[in-house]
């Protein structure tokens, strides 16, 4: 009688497709996955604990390192929690600058997501094409903040600085160009027959399961659940923009990928509207904040929609200049919760496809 033997395969932490130092202990039967055990913690730096020994302002650069591909969104979530705690009013102009830089960050993150996903599926060119536009995005962010990835642009009560002269026009011009670039990715990656064969009906995530596992971001919307914090609970000035929330139908890898692709088109719309509206606003970019930030005793929780999902910051203050406790709800980590069941029964090649479609960021997973 033919008998097959199951064996274990250590997928990572040193592996080209785990997007960092993630490890999955796969139990395989031939090429088919019987069991998958995700193991994380290889990039753990104890960010939450570090916060307890830093002042409120000093913690901002640490949030950059959570999701270094969309640093502005991380900064924003944290400062929002502290602002809520202190009851600080953020000037309108600062809110707009947060939207513009935040959406640019989201663009950079989504470009990496689709680029590396194409690399995971085996097409190298999509990766480099996405990097071409990401380079421009990085240049723009560098001009604004002085840093390419770890922006630390948000401040408690506003943002670090106003946009330099002519910067908004440059962003506007880039946004004019962006849709044609997205068409190009669609032509090269999304429309490809092999790509669709590889991603459709793979790693299906049902809407109920997605909600039960608290999955958020494009991975949730790929399953057809219409929940985007920017629309559902608008924070900042998001209620002033006209944009759609792209949704998937089947909840497979392709839908999650396609959601990111369509989200890029939407964020182009948001940025263009924001640039139009910010031109009519004059004023400071930072509100009235005391020199030493000492929030009153209490706690606050703020959440925003990042490129990976809903990031939440829970800040507890004991009245001293340092936070008593900071906890971060990391979307990448929570989105991984369903990974085991999602991988079962698929092939080794699909493991890469499914993991890539969740678009995890190891800095955030391990915190």
């Amino acid at each position: 009688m033919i008998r097959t033997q199951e064996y274990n395969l250590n997928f990572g932490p040193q592996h080209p497709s785990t997007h960092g130092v993630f490890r999955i202990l796969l139990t395989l039967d031939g090429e088919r996955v019987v069991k998958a055990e995700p193991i994380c913690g290889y990039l753990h730096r104890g960010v939450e604990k570090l916060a307890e020994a830093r002042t409120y302002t000093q913690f901002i650069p640490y949030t950059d390192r959570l999701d270094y591909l969309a640093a502005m969104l991380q900064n924003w979530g944290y400062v929002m929690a502290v602002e809520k705690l202190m009851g600080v009013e953020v000037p309108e102009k600062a809110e707009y600058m947060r939207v513009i830089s935040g959406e640019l960050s989201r663009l950079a993150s989504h470009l990496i997501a689709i680029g590396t996903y194409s690399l995971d599926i085996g097409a190298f060119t999509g990766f480099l094409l996405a990097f071409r536009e990401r380079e421009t995005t990085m240049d723009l962010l560098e001009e604004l903040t002085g840093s390419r990835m770890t922006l630390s642009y948000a401040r408690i009560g506003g943002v670090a600085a106003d946009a330099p002269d002519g910067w908004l026009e440059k962003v506007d011009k880039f946004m004019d160009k962006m849709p044609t670039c997205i068409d190009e990715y669609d032509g090269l990656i999304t429309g490809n027959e092999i790509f669709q064969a590889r991603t459709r009906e793979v790693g299906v995530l049902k809407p109920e399961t997605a909600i039960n596992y608290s999955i958020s971001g494009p991975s949730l919307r790929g399953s057809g659940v219409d929940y985007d914090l920017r629309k559902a609970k608008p924070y900042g000035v998001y209620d002033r923009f006209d944009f759609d929330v792209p949704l998937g139908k089947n909840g497979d890898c392709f839908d999650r990928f396609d959601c990111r692709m369509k989200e890029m088109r939407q964020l182009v719309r948001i940025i263009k509207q924001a640039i139009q509206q910010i031109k009519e606003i004059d004023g400071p970019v930072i509100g009235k904040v005391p020199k030493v930030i000492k929030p009153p005793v209490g706690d606050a929780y703020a959440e925003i929609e990042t490129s990976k999902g809903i990031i939440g910051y829970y800040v507890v203050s004991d009245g001293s200049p340092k936070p008593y406790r900071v906890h971060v709800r990391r979307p990448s980590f929570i989105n991984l919760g369903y990974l085991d069941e999602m991988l079962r029964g698929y092939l080794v090649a699909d493991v890469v496809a499914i993991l890539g479609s969740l678009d995890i960021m190891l800095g955030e997973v391990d915190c």
Partner: protein
Amino acid sequence: MFENLFVGIANGLRSLLGGLPLEINEAIVMLVKLVAILVFILVNALWLVYMERKVAAFVQARIGPNRVGPKGLLQTTADIGKLICKEIIIHKDTDKLVFMLAPMLVFVPTLMVFAVIPFGKNMAAIDMNIGLLYLLAIGSLSTLIFWMAGWASNNKYSLLGGMRSVAQMVSYELPMVLAILGVIMITGSLKMSDIIAAQEHTWFIFSQPIAFLIFFIASVSECNRAPFDLIEAESELVNGFNTEYSGMAFAMFYLAEYANMLVSCAMVTILFLGGWYAPFGLDFIPSWLWFFIKMYVMMFIIMQLRWTYPRIRVDQLMGFGWKVLVPLSLANIFVTGIGMYIYRAIGW
């Protein structure tokens, strides 16, 4: 003017060695031919690595290698130099003999195959009467070497790569041979020179377009090139069968991939693109140059495929091979047979 360049050199060598007994004379000439082929393959492999990087750069809106030598031409040479200096790591659980034998043997099938390939008019080292059969038989040996490398590495990624290599070879060798059958039915010969001679007026790409497509797809798969590069599959299997290889042992596999591509493109040229025949009566370009041009056009297409398409999944690969290519190639034989019968019956 250069039409008889290489044939002339061979004849000159023969007459130079005229004083010697005939057997020794022939043996020396054959040796020179084989050394020439060896040099040809290695130089081509080096050049192809460079060409691949330039084509990739062209597709991806980059510049590509441009630092070492004029236009970066010496880049591969520099890379090989670096790889020679590197240590070949053999970890303790490998089957050492087989592990080291695999990179040594990897060029052997390719070299053997080149002995029968006619590079121009009267320019095959040996024009065997079973040339095509020999080529197919020897060509499929390379799978054995990938399997050796995958098995001896004692690494699960390598093992998966090796397994895939065998499965892929079994499923794609079949449509490949069946596709060639259409051509053989028309020519009635397995001899390379006969096959080319039959294409003097019409290339087989026009009379056997389906066979051409099947053969081309199968041969891309045989050289393990994207979208069929499953045995290496960087994003899944790290590097597949050669994950554990380093230094020159790795470089041998790397160069062999290009040498295999060369064989595949040469075969496509011989079987379907009229070999060394000049199209449109452009006879002033020597026949061997025509062969070369056709070969490199195919090479460019294969490279462009690699940099455009994602990788197919292993079950889809098998499905495509058995459910699409094999029935299609059988149908092609059937249609070719009927066509030939009608052709003879009408007696054009």
